[in-house]
């Protein structure tokens, strides 16, 4: 030992002699149980294999489709791909952790996906009949026996080798069965599925929806923009957008959708050479008023990242990956529903398809994508500003008309402070929001309303001078000097520059997001942003925030 150390202690390491014998069978438990615990994701894994098989068969005699039959406690998944002959089936099933697919042309768990069902079903059978060969062959994994055995041995501190366990609990048919000569299929039979999966699998509608969210299917034909989206995807990324027909108990599976969305906007992420890295679409929810615009279904809210039509993670992934980092307010993406298909082969998805692997290439991609998302955010912001302006300005115009009527029909001295305050707020709100209404009918109405505010104020001032005094009762005007001061105050409102709190206090995107969420919740609870209750609470929060956090920026605020 000393000699070795003296000779060359830093000599290159020597290989450890791993054999099947010294790899314990608990590894199988880790592999299978660790893959997924959601039945839709387990089924997706097999659908993905089917999708790859169908797409890799150029001479497919019919459009590819996958049929899923749920016959609790069993699930049968069939695809009409080319199928496998006995040797191909054995080769595919006996190789674990080896994928023979080109990573850029397929998507998968790198040869482990076929084990996904072992954690869910007591027995997994994979049957296949190859096109042109009238034979049926099958491989069986006795999952329950295998995993129970592994656990029992583990409890006793015992183990077997992974090879021994696999050999003991898997099998192949001794001789092929005759099959319909024109048949070609691969079937995955998940048999005796464990009870905890019952609820999700027997809720057929729910299961169809969850498969529709993650599988390579077309948009629901009932979705008003489905055709346009299909055309966009098929003409821009034909190699990467290749949906197949998927049916659950005979019912077609489509991508779920949200009603009331605007026309799709294109998302294109392009590198410096002009090559497309990702392509997609996003539709804005055009429901009026901010707190109604958020898409309520959280599995459809935001932009889904896709690869070959299969979802990567959930719709919160872009946020987690900071794809929205260039956007000040993340709320805008709660108003969008869309998909972004990653077509860059250098972007690698994690094996469990929950995220994208970090690399310098990914960082570059995130930077480029976030610029595209900023564009979407700006569009959403401008829509929101216009919509909010429409709502607020119309409300203020109505208010001005009412005040005018009140003033004309006579007001008491007691009413005056309130009327002046309302007029001031109306004028200020109209003035602030008018710029978002350029070219609209409301813009003209707003201008008229502003004039009207001026006229009412004139009327009130002239009342001070006694012009309208004769028309009033004893307890009404003339106005006092105090009132005239109030009028002056109202007239000066338009000169105040109003900044949002996040802008005033220089909030980070996250802080802005939290602030917006809180304010939205308060607005919701108060019955809208235009209510007096909301105004009061918002003012209190704003003043508290300015007091605590605004010192450093006092000058800016002022």
């Amino acid at each position, binding site marked *: 030992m000393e000699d070795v150390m003296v000779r060359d202690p830093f000599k290159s390491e020597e290989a450890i002699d791993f054999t099947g014998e010294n790899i314990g069978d608990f590894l199988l438990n880790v592999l299978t149980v660790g893959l997924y615990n959601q039945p839709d994701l387990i089924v997706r894994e097999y659908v993905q294999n089917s999708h790859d098989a169908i797409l890799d068969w150029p001479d497919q005699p019919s459009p590819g489709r996958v049929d899923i039959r749920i016959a609790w406690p069993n699930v049968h998944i069939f695809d009409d791909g080319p199928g496998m002959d006995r040797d191909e089936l054995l080769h595919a099933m006996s190789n674990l952790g080896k994928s023979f697919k080109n990573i850029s042309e397929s998507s998968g768990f790198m040869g482990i996906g076929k084990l996904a069902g072992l954690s869910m079903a007591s027995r997994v059978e994979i049957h296949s009949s190859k096109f042109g060969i009238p034979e049926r062959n099958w491989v069986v994994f006795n999952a329950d026996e295998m995993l129970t055995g592994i656990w029992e041995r583990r409890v006793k501190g015992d183990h077997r080798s992974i090879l021994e366990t696999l050999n003991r609990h898997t099998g192949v048919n001794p001789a092929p*069965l005759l099959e319909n000569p024109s048949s070609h299929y691969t*079937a995955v039979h998940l048999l005796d599925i464990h009870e905890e999966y019952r609820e999700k699998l027997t809720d057929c509608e729910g299961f169809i929806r969850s498969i529709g969210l993650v599988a390579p299917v077309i948009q629901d034909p009932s979705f008003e923009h489905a055709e346009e989206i299909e055309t966009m995807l098929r003409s821009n990324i034909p190699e990467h957008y290749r949906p197949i027909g998927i049916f659950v108990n005979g019912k077609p599976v489509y991508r779920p959708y949200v009603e009331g969305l605007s026309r799709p906007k294109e998302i294109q992420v392009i590198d410096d050479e002009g090559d497309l890295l990702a392509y997609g679409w996003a539709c804005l929810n055009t429901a009026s008023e901010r707190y109604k615009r958020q898409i309520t279904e959280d599995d459809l809210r935001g932009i889904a990242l896709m690869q070959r039509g299969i979802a990567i993670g959930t719709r919160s992934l872009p946020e987690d990956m900071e794809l929205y980092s260039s956007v000040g307010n993340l709320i805008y993406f709660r108003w969008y529903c869309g998909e972004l298909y990653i077509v860059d082969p250098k972007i690698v998805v994690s094996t469990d398809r929950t995220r994208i692997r970090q690399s310098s290439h990914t960082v570059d991609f995130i930077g480029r994508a976030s610029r595209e998302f900023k564009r979407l955010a700006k569009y959403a912001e401008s829509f929101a500003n216009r919509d909010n302006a429409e709502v607020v300005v119309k409300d203020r115009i109505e208010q001005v008309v009412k005040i005018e009527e009140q003033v004309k029909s006579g007001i008491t001295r007691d009413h005056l402070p309130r009327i002046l305050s309302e007029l001031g707020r109306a004028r200020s709100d109209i003035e602030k929001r008018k710029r978002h209404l350029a070219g609209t009918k409301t813009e003209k109405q707003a201008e008229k309303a502003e004039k009207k505010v001026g006229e009412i104020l004139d009327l009130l001032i002239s009342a001070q001078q006694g012009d309208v005094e004769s028309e009033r009762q004893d307890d009404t005007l003339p106005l006092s000097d105090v009132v005239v001061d109030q009028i002056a105050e109202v007239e000066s409102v338009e000169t105040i520059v109003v900044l949002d709190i996040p802008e005033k206090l220089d909030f980070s995107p996250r802080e802005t997001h939290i602030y917006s969420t809180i304010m939205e919740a308060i607005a919701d609870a108060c019955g809208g942003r235009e209510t007096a209750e909301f105004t009061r609470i918002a003012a209190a929060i704003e003043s508290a925030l300015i007091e605590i956090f605004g010192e450093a920026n006092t000058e800016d605020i002022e």
Partner: protein
Amino acid sequence: MRAFSSVGKDLARRDDSSIIAELSRKAGRKLSYLGLPSPWMGDVLAWKPFLARVFAVEQEKRYLSHLMDTAYAYGLVNQVVYFWGDIDEIMKSQVDEYGQSTADVFPIDLINLDYCRGLDYQEFKKLSTLESLITRQRQSLLAGRLSASFPYFLVLLTHNLPYREGDPTAKRKYIRFLIRDVKYYAESLREQVYTSYEWYLSAECPSAYPHKCFVMGKFFACAQRNGFKAVPRKVVQYSGDKDAVMLHYQFQITPVSLRSPVPVDNKLDVIDILNYPVLSCEGEDINPDRPVIRV
């Protein structure tokens, strides 16, 4: 796992196709099927053009995936619903081994009970299955599922001839039971019935004939008890798997008085049963010289 099939079986199935097609035409729709199709589903595939739903009962759990493979290979995957377990038990309990209820599948248009074994004379388990099936049909029709598009239903029944099974005197006892009221018949008719009875007990009577009497007698009684009229369309003997002698029956069952079932036996039924020919799969009477009772 090996397919049970033979030339005779194929001929019988082809013959069944014509009455199945006829029912489909009369009902104006495709039919529902309940049976024991095995993973090969030979009967279902033969009658596929007339079937809308297939309720398959499979006793062997390990065959279920193969049953679905076959259904898929022949474009039936979304039409097949399977029940796992012994049909006799399932019909008795109305649930299969998975706990899946069979209640909603009735009424069925076509019931095909293709038993590879015999219908035992002494333990009437399989006959009680028939009784349960027919009772379920009645209950579902009474529950409001009877409509103009349900003119009648078909029961196809296949069993082998169990030469060595059961009590050898049972056939004789049963035929004696069938003709128990013959003493009230007119003399000429009574004599004919006795002649026929003697022939049934003689060595020249092929074993298919007493079996036919047993199955038809039991089946008619069962149908009548439930307010149906059973009419045989054909009884065929053919050579099955491993040259087993098989008997195949076609029954047409029409609802007549579901709410107040009519009395079980009548004279005409007994004479019909005794007279009814057993055909070979080529359509010829297997014993053309048997005595025929003239009413």
